[in-house]
């Protein structure tokens, strides 16, 4: 998968012995994803779903040649798990964990920028390449192989859209959930850039929501750099104004964050925006 990583994926699961970790390890194996092992400190030497468990990421790499990690570690230790993966030179880190404190993520974000590791998430449903790879918690059966790249900030809403695409004959090249948290390792713009350069992707579907300015930045990229057509949906048009982060928050965000502003920016950039997720499909013909 040259989209995210230069060589073949060799995947380990951090938090493999936990409830979520072991459940999704089995699921990913069932859907044909190759997992070379897992890590849980203090449980090295055990086996989960026929895969060896190691005490550290470093020892897992020595034994298996792992280059990719998926993290199911609980929020209080998740930042530490990400640092361990970065310090062990894991190339691609996908963090599923939801509820990591913002301060922890800001530090992780600052640290990882200075390395060659890439982080997807946290609070991401993962990456799905139909018929090839399912790293994460997305239900694989909803997807089918094709040329539409899907990038999203949400979970079940993404499944809805992928399902609708499949039902209407639009297969997907790659589906990436960048995560629902405010601080993310990889943003819309970086994924759009990958899709723009990916020969397997011809059209792109972007699913955004209220809050932050990631979709505004995406619109600017679409307007200035992108040649492939983009269809979008933004959730939260009817949402009441959330708790504002005091005056400082208002001053920093300067109004960016409403659904309408994002819709306007995307339309201005030449993207087609659906008023309703059922209608995205119509915008791809």
């Amino acid at each position, binding site marked *: 998968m040259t989209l995210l990583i230069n060589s073949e994926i060799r995947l380990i699961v951090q938090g493999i012995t936990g409830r979520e970790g072991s459940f999704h390890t089995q699921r990913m194996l069932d859907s044909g994803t190759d997992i070379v092992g897992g890590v849980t400190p203090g449980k090295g030497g055990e086996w989960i779903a026929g895969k060896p468990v190691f005490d550290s990421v470093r020892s897992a790499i020595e034994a298996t040649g792992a280059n990719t990690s998926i993290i199911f570690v609980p*929020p*209080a230790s998740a930042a530490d798990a990400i640092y361990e993966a970065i310090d062990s030179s894991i190339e691609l880190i996908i963090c599923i964990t939801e*509820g990591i*404190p*913002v*301060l*922890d*993520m*800001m*530090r992780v*974000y*600052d*640290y990882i920028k200075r390395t060659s590791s890439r982080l997807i998430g946290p609070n991401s449903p993962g990456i799905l390449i139909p018929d090839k790879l399912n790293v994460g*918690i*997305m*239900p694989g059966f*909803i997807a089918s192989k094709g040329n539409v790249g899907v990038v*999203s*900030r*949400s*979970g*079940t*809403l*993404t*499944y*809805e859209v992928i*399902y609708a695409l499949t039902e209407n004959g639009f297969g997907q090249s790659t589906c990436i959930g960048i995560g*629902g948290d*405010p*601080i993310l390792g990889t943003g819309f713009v970086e994924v759009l850039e990958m899709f723009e350069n990916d020969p397997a992707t011809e059209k792109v579907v972007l*699913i955004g*929501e*209220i809050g*932050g*300015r*990631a979709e505004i*930045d995406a619109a600017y990229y679409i307007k200035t750099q992108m040649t492939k057509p983009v269809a979008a*949906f933004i*959730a*939260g*048009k*009817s*949402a*009441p104004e959330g*708790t*504002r*982060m*005091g*005056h*400082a*928050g*208002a*001053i*920093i965000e*300067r109004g960016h964050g409403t*659904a309408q502003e994002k819709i306007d920016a995307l339309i201005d950039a030449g993207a087609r925006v659906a*008023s*309703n*997720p*059922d209608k995205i499909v119509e915008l791809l013909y």
Partner: protein
Amino acid sequence: MRLHEYQSKEHLKEYGIPVALGKLATSADEAYEIAKELSSPVVIKAQVLTSGRQKSHGIEYAWTPEDTRAKSARILSTSILGLPVNKVLIDPRIDIIQQLYLGITYDRSIGRPVLVASSEGGIDIEQVAIDRPKAIIREEINPILGLRAYQITAIASHIELPRSYWKQFTEITQTLYDIYAQSDALLAEINPLAITKEDTLIALDAKLVIDENALYRQQQLNTLKQHNHQYTAETEANNAGFSYIKLSGQIGCMVNGAGLAMTTMDMTTLYGGEHIGPANFLDIGGGARSDKVALGLRLILSDPDVQCILLNIFGGITRCDEVARGIISAYEQIQPNLPIILRLQGTNAQEGLRIISDANISNMHTAKTLTQAAKRAVDSVRDMQS
């Protein structure tokens, strides 16, 4: 988690920031006693978790204890933006010559804390930011290094703070950042930070918002959580791991996943027009076991405005046949007599829909798409209204 002004100021005081902080009163008589004790003019401040208190007449000056009693009685009998005022803070009134603004929050687009400061603090700071952006300075902070002394000097210099205050300003600003980082705050704000007639700096008002995800390591602040909750339905939802927001419409929505829940709200608003819309936002999270569905239904039904229920579940990892069984068992426990529109999609949806139709529940209707479900819910509210 947002803290009250008095809680925020107590927290700042513990860290050594000078604050104007009197005492809390829950009755007019208590307010009278506090004013007498302070033996100075006072400021009476409603303690409700909303902004714009001053503009809603929730803040008043009083010159005598009698005056304090009368004005506190009025404020304690009102509501501010729908929130009843149960307590007022009686602060000593401080003579000031200038108001500064100092706030730290995070900027998600750069993934860093940002300090915002101005020499034109007070309630109109956001207008200042629009009218005279140069009067506001924003300084990005490296979250690993923290706020450095040179940055504070740059801020003091930019807002043209007289040098005689720099030492105290540096201490207060550094401490505010320590509070921000050590308390896992999402916002730490002092507005105004006043320059007094005695040439000292003092925090007249403060606001702290704490990251809910970090409360596990903030024991002291966590104890304030139960204390501050005002809506019972929202508290109950919170305890169950749901996220619930009461809205003004008639369609009670229950959905798995936040993005899909927002979309369901958007669709009922789109088809409902001006008078019909969602009664709530309710995300019951991943999966949809029967105990979760039952709790969600109870939450929705506790709202007297609800005239129709819309259940929108996408079965991903959770199979729709399990969800269908959960819905039927929850239905049997609660027996709601409102129309229920159900949309099930995803893993084993056919099987799930067959289970629902076999149960033969007369007020439960199924819809295939989200559009159909939203239209159907709107129609049933319209039928009841006509």
